[in-house]
């Protein structure tokens, strides 16, 4: 029996019916909805689809949970390299000094400080400007998930001030602009600081 012998016999192919099933629409749907052969083939395809879903669930169940040794073993073996990013030049006390800090270190600082501001969770951070010249003005863009219910302009201001102070204290960067973008709203989740986000 060739695969083609499974086509419904009305000129349509299993593939067309399968595409109809997954897309939910077809230029030929008027026929497919009314042809008994197509309907029989669609029923078989649906059954296969249902079984596949059950198999997927069973696979997930059998894979186990992350409390089990397999996950710990994977995480123990995983060596995540530090993401240093670009190098930011610093002005030294002497002209001969060649000092720098990494973008990654400054981003980590921004995350740590920013997360302490109530209602804010820091997302992506980006630096704009000339990082190679010590003292050159640098702009920072920060994505933030805000706790639902916060006054967003106040939150952005507090965050901007807190970050500016921390960066001035802990780095030598000449930060001339901190652009806060509220990219998502989160809802309070029990036992956490409230960084869970709405679906």
């Amino acid at each position, binding site marked *: *029996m060739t*695969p*083609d012998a499974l086509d419904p016999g009305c000129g349509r*192919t*299993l*593939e067309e019916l*399968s595409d109809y099933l997954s897309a939910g629409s077809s230029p030929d749907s008027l026929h497919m909805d009314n042809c008994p052969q197509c309907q029989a083939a669609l029923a*078989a*395809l649906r*059954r*296969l*689809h249902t*079984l*596949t879903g*059950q*198999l*997927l669930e*069973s*696979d*997930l169940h*059998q*894979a*186990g*949970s*992350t409390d089990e040794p*397999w*996950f710990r*073993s*994977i995480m123990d073996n*995983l*060596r*995540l*390299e*530090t*993401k240093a*990013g670009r190098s930011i030049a610093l002005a030294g006390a002497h002209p001969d000094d060649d000092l720098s800090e990494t973008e*990654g270190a400054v*981003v*980590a600082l921004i*995350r740590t400080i920013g*997360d*302490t*501001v*109530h209602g804010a*969770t*820091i*997302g*992506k*951070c980006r630096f704009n400007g000339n990082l190679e010249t010590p003292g050159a003005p640098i702009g920072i863009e920060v*994505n933030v*998930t805000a706790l639902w219910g916060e006054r967003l302009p106040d939150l952005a201001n*507090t965050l901007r001030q807190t970050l500016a102070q921390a960066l001035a204290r802990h780095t030598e960067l000449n930060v001339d602009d901190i652009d806060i973008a509220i990219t*998502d709203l*989160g809802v309070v*989740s029990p036992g*956490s*600081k409230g*960084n*869970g*986000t709405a679906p």
Partner: protein
Amino acid sequence: MTAPPLTADALSSAADGLLAERASDGDSKAFEVLARRYAPAMRGYARRITGSFADADDAVQESLLQAWTKLGDLSEPNAVRGWMMRITANASINLVRRRKSTTSIDAVEDPADPAPTPETAALTATGMTALTAALARLPEEQRHCWVLKEMGNQSYEEIARTLGITSDSVRGRLSRARATLLKEMEAWQ
């Protein structure tokens, strides 16, 4: 106006997109939350492709490493789950191929399910057991296409890229796999 710093535990309810952004900026705690969230799905998927949990664990570890390294390339952080599953499929297929080149075909572990434990036996309906067996009988090239499409929800183009074949070949293999499975299924009901 201050709160204690976020711990991995507090991040555990954060949205995928936020975790992906932080992880791509080097926040390993955020990455661990993502890994914890999707590792079981990745392991189940990898095991379905490679045929064993031992290989699946290698594939998942490789996938997580790649995900950590390449997170910066992810243009849509909210789509991180699908992206991690695609990486998992790639790593699993590559692992199967590496095994092939060092082992004779006959020695490759059959991807049929291991003997069912009482737990899985209770869980699996007859149809599902039959589907598993039918999948195991498919030629490997068809099975991979079918698993990537129907269980991984990957597009023809993505599957083509993963397997290094044309989209038309993917379409053809899927078509044959579907026909065979349906034909076998007729006998189960």
